[in-house]
């Protein structure tokens, strides 16, 4: 009884004299491997050269600073809420007097950690951020020896004052306009807070 049409008749055919000689077969095999001598290498010598990535590649996050060098993040937690992998955690603190140059708003993130092993690089944190503080960049996440080392703190995420990271490709005008659209979750929240504020006072 034939159950499927995938069955194959086993062939136990005897080798021909030519096949029994082996040598032609061996030569054929050697020509195949030999032809690979002249093929393109598949290797990318990583640290020196990198694979080309899309301009809007989503890799290692950056916490942006504003034009004065103050951190933009205000530790609102929207990115952590938006994160589907629950990779982001933060602790907020209040800005002291004299720290205006360091932090843009009165509240800032004392601790800001992203677990790079949990992160799925979807970019929802960037979409959720009302302060334009977090962006994904085209940098690849480093390799580490320990799992703990993949939890990136502020030291690895915040951009250096003297070494700004260009995110203009991901922060186009269209994106900025899109973020202001009514109906987006954080816009609505912001609006409702405004209304609440208005009612209180």
């Amino acid at each position: 009884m034939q159950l499927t049409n995938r069955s194959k008749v086993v062939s136990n055919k005897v080798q021909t004299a030519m096949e029994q000689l082996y040598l032609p077969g061996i030569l054929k095999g050697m020509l195949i491997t030999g032809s690979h001598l002249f093929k393109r290498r598949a290797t990318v010598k990583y640290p020196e050269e990198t694979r080309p990535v899309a301009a809007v590649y989503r890799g290692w996050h950056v916490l942006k600073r504003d034009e004065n060098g103050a951190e933009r993040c205000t530790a609102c937690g929207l990115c952590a809420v938006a994160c589907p992998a629950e990779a982001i955690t933060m602790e907020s603190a209040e800005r002291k007097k004299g720290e205006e140059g360091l932090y843009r708003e009165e509240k800032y993130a004392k601790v800001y950690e992203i677990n790079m092993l949990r992160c799925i690089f979807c970019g929802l944190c960037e979409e959720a951020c009302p302060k334009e503080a977090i962006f994904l960049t085209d940098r690849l996440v480093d390799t580490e020896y320990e799992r703990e080392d993949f939890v990136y703190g502020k030291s690895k995420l915040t951009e250096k004052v003297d070494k700004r990271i260009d995110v203009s490709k991901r922060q186009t005008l269209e994106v900025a306009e899109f973020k202001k659209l009514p109906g987006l979750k954080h816009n609505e929240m912001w609006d409702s807070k405004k209304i609440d504020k208005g009612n209180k006072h």
Partner: protein
Amino acid sequence: MLAFIIYKLIICVAVFGLSLAVAAYSTLWERKLSALLQDRVGPDRAGPFGLLQPLADGGKMFFKEEIIPNVSNKFLFILGPSLVMLTALMTGAVIPWAKDAYVGGKLYSMQITDINIGILYLFGVVSVGVYGIMIGGWASNNKYALLGSMRASSQMISYEIAMGIAVIALIITSGGTLSLREIVEQQDAGFANIVWQPLGFIIFFVCALAETNRAPFDLPECEAELVGGYHTEYSSMKLGLFLFAEYINMFISSAVMAAFYFGGYNFPFAQELYDAMGLADGSKWIALIGFGAYFTKIFLFISVFMWIRWTLPRFRYDQLMNLGWRILLPLSLLNLAITVVVEFFRGHITF
């Protein structure tokens, strides 16, 4: 007398160093070639183009922990790899590396010793090499090592027979000489022996693969079945010696093949080239060019050895024995018969 001893010492050390250097760089070339055949780049981090890789590999071997099993016979355990290395290095003694050359007004031979039983010496030393593997595998007191060494010895003995008969045919073609120098020299006058011995060469080549335990005949150390074969229990530099001896053997067997069948340091139109360059017999430059030609051949052979390794899968053991006893042995006998007939008509042998 002193000058003679110094000259012999120098050439001994030179051949010794050459064997080691070539073996070391064969390991690099093996890795490089395997990478090229697999569309990879291969080692290129240690030094320019990875040229320091053999040093790094050797250094790694030296710094590994040295383990000698409690249950092993310590003396034999150390004797094994030493014997393998010794015999591998001894074979280089009878190989003529280049033409004789005048150095400081005296004619020097570029060969450690030209004994008139060179081929017998070569075969004798190579078959002692089996003992090294056998002793090493036995002394390990490990079943995988024992199986590996058993395989090695039976394989090498089997293939030595076909190899020996192929060489007998070669000796007949060369007019009955056993000296490697004479075999090489008489190819200078006529054609290379490959013209008269194509079948003999193929038999010799296959047997040389089996003798050096190279793929597709690497059953003595097949990782898939026997962990590491005869060197399972070995570690550190003793393992290094085993692996290194394989590369020296490969180098020497390439040299022997080039000398037996491809004219050694001779090459087509060599005399015309020397005449055009105005070089007299016994010139240093002739020796050097001949040495270069010889090395090109050796390099090509080593590359083909590696090419085969990275192309073919391993034989099954019964297939190996089948090939050795039921195909190569009759073939080599046939080759011998044909050679006798051909040489009778060429006038090399008379009845």
